[in-house]
């Protein structure tokens, strides 16, 4: 079922677009790695573990690059917050087609919870003046699903989250976004600039091939600190404990209805 809620009409006149898109990308443990809890139970094993760009962030980069290829956007800027190695993630984004990158150096990735990230991204957005901020809906490590929403509130910009389709109106004054919600699909209109977070079915990201990775090495990366952005280093959350979920018990097969009823009554105690 499609629920169409258009907040305002679409203006159709051709204007060359000078639209800049800011895309946030995060360096996370690769989706295929079996994550292990650290011995001290304060986090997960990160030493010698394969890292990669967050899959939802990758989808955001792909969408931004496609908008540029269509001629709708003029520049795609990737931004990442993290230690030195976050540069790899920015290089990946540039290999996919981002024009340049901003690296906000922050050594301790554990402190980067959504509110802090949103405050930093707000400062970067005020510096870069994009017409759109594209973020992944959540990171596969934290799974907070808060950063985009918080950023939109801090900036005072409209938000369209869980985007499965993004259509920019001519003139880049507004966008129509189809959102994946529990009941199905919802179409909203947002005035630009806006914050949009991406969902899995928005697009299929291109693979960053070796030639493109080589070309990306020539692209510019600006290094900033939180002090440069005027954001206070204030950590609100502390990870107290990280535990594995309880191991799932193996199922058993019962050989008849009698055995099933017996088990339900005596073992599961639900009858």
């Amino acid at each position, binding site marked *: 079922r499609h629920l169409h809620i258009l907040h305002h009409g679409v203006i159709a006149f051709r204007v060359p677009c000078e639209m800049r898109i800011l895309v946030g990308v995060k360096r996370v443990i690769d*989706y*295929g790695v079996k994550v292990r809890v650290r011995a001290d139970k304060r986090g997960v094993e990160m030493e010698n573990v394969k890292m990669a760009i967050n*899959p939802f962030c990758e989808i955001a980069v792909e969408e931004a690059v496609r908008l540029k290829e269509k001629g709708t956007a003029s520049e795609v800027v990737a931004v990442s917050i993290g230690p030195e190695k976050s540069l790899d993630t920015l290089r990946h984004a540039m290999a996919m087609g981002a024009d340049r990158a901003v690296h906000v150096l922050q050594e301790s990735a554990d402190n980067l919870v959504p509110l802090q990230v949103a405050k930093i991204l707000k400062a970067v957005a005020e510096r870069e003046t994009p017409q759109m901020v594209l973020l992944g809906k959540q990171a*596969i490590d934290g799974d907070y699903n808060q950063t985009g929403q918080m950023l939109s509130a801090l900036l005072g910009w409209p938000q369209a989250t869980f985007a499965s389709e993004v259509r920019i109106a001519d003139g880049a004054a507004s966008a129509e976004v189809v959102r994946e919600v529990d009941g199905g699909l919802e179409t909203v209109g947002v005035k630009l600039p806006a914050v949009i977070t991406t969902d*899995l079915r928005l697009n*299929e*990201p291109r*693979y960053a*091939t*070796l030639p493109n*990775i080589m070309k990306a090495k020539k692209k510019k990366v600006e290094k900033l600190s939180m002090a440069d952005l005027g954001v206070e280093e204030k950590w609100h959350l502390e990870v107290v404990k990280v535990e594995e979920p309880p191991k799932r018990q193996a199922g058993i097969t019962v050989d008849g209805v009698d055995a099933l009823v017996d088990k339900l009554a005596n073992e599961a105690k639900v009858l």
Partner: protein
Amino acid sequence: KKHGRGCSGSLGRLMHPLVRDLYKRILRVGRDYPAGVNFVREKAKAKFAENSHLRDELEIKRAIAYGRYMVREMVGVIKLRKYRTMKQRYYA
């Protein structure tokens, strides 16, 4: 034939630059391939060794084209595996 920096062939011949480039591409994709880079490297080395006797430029280019096709196939597998895993984790 142009110079290469060392060689993986048993004859100590100089490697064709496109062949070297293809091998690098295969290893790069192998890093993300679900079966693992070691599996990919073994298969690639075997195939490269099979074709190491080729001397005609056109035949070499054909073999390279096949190798590049295999790289595209591997990329397809990688993308599909990622999509399916994410779909299962977040939407199943």
